[in-house]
């Protein structure tokens, strides 16, 4: 079958955080691993708007913060409720200590992923860029390799294939582990990287040198599920908007129109003013949640990270890395027993279920469905908050006590107390 083709212990498809972690975990213990990346370099096809947490990367590369290309340590967590012409900003500052390690960092994917993959190479992983895997090779129902184009010269064989090929994963779909996503299972994020001097960023976000802020916003998606974000990098801001695809279809709007609206809002515009756009990107984000997680393994195959829909706001990267690490461990175990059957690899899903990452995901997304179906959270509440506060803060000779009464009345009309309590409960999944 593959006389002249070389056989690896494992092929990992995709050199993002999940794939590189899996490859690194296996190679460290002596497995022969090929890591295939479709971009020109790891990170070339990736888009990030989030925080890279210390856990679990620290477990894989101790003291990674000393060498990894990181942007800013996150000390300021901001949450904003936005209405058309008002905004309420909450800022919580913590962890502003003087010394590393910090709990979380911003990172630029193209730099970080490249560095991370180079660590895997140092551990003996064979990294091949510019390889677009579009299919798996199966024999008697067992996955034995991958295909990256036509002909035998584009086939590669291994005992196990780990699909870390992102939300549009071919490995997951071609092995039948899951279907391509439905519009209510993925959100689209559109993002701009806006360049600003680091001092300007620090001044505008009330930060000390090197410190960073993250800001999440609701109320900028026309009442649909989604939100806006800003993450501070060293000398740029990642500014973007995310919206559930099925909701974008209902709005019949272009995603970049939402981004334009967000950027021109009075709460955002001064933060990015004078900045120079450096990049425009878009990506899908799994929003299927815990209840719709696919089976994560089969005969000779496992799927990790976004490919497995393992993503849960705002922890995408650490969930990806955790799944990669655990899949890697399952593969090591399988290698030891020389058994790469589904039964053997099921250890991956079991171990993952016991992990912090998965338990967190379960907690957050149990309310996912309610969130999707609740238009109030992303539209009515933000608008109401804006309206009430505006009324309250507008001094026009009217007594505050009258305003209070009117506010309560409005709140009752528009939402009602019971519903508000229920909404608050369902929104707990939004809590970071």
């Amino acid at each position: 079958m593959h006389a002249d083709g070389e056989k690896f212990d494992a092929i990992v498809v995709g050199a993002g955080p999940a794939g590189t972690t899996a490859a690194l975990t296996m190679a460290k213990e002596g497995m022969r691993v090929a890591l295939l990346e479709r971009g020109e370099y790891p990170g070339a096809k990736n888009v990030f708007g989030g925080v890279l947490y210390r856990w679990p990367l620290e477990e894989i590369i101790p003291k990674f913060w000393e060498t990894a290309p990181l942007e800013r340590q996150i000390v300021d967590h901001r949450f904003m409720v936005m209405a058309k012409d008002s905004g309420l900003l909450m800022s919580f500052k913590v962890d502003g200590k003087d010394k590393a390690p910090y709990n979380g960092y911003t990172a630029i994917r193209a730099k970080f992923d490249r560095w991370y993959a180079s660590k895997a190479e140092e551990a003996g992983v064979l990294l091949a860029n510019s390889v677009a895997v579009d299919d798996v090779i199966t024999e008697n129902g067992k996955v034995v390799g991958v295909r990256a184009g036509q002909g035998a010269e584009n086939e590669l064989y291994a005992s196990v294939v780990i699909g870390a090929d992102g939300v549009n994963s071919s490995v997951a779909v071609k092995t039948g582990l899951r279907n391509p996503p439905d519009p209510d299972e993925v959100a689209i994020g559109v993002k701009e990287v806006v360049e600003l001097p680091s001092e300007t960023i620090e001044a505008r976000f009330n930060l000390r040198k090197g410190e960073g802020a993250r800001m999440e916003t609701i109320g900028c998606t026309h009442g649909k599920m989604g939100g806006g974000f800003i993450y501070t990098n060293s000398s740029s801001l990642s500014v973007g908007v995310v919206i559930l695809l099925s909701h974008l279809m209902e709005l019949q709007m272009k995603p970049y129109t939402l981004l334009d609206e967000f950027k021109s809002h009075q709460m955002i515009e001064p933060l990015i003013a004078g900045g120079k756009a450096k990049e425009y990107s878009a990506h899908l984000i799994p929003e299927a949640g815990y209840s719709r997680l696919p089976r994560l393994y089969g005969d000779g195959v496992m799927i990790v990270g976004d490919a497995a829909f393992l993503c849960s706001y705002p922890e995408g990267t650490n969930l990806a890395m955790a799944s990669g690490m655990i899949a890697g461990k399952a593969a090591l175990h399988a290698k030891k027993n020389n058994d790469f059957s589904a039964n053997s690899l099921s250890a991956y899903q079991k171990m993952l279920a016991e992990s912090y990452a998965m338990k967190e995901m379960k907690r957050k997304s149990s309310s996912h469905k309610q969130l999707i179906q609740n238009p109030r959270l992303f539209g009515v509440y933000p608008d109401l908050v804006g309206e009430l506060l505006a009324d309250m803060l507008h001094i026009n000779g009217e007594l505050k006590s009258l305003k209070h009464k009117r506010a309560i009345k409005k709140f009752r009309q528009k939402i009602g107390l019971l519903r508000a309590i229920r909404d608050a409960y369902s929104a707990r999944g939004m809590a970071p």
Partner: protein
Amino acid sequence: MKLEERLFLDRFNVHEDNHLIVDTSKCTECSLKPCTFVCPVDDYNWDGGKLIISYEGCLECGACEVVCPFDKIKVMSPPAGKGVSFRFG
């Protein structure tokens, strides 16, 4: 900012073959035509009863494939590292 200015920010190593595989046989039956508005770079345009597809500025997000009500869009990976390359990402 205009879309074309946005696209100019990105690095594209355009492959000569279209990686957006679209079967347009159902387009006339499709009333919503979600591909024409969810695409973040306007790669799909309905023009005089015909779907015009460009692929040079594709950000490879895959939204078009997900939203097509008739499952007639397949986004392939441009081969050999071609297509978009994010320098920030």
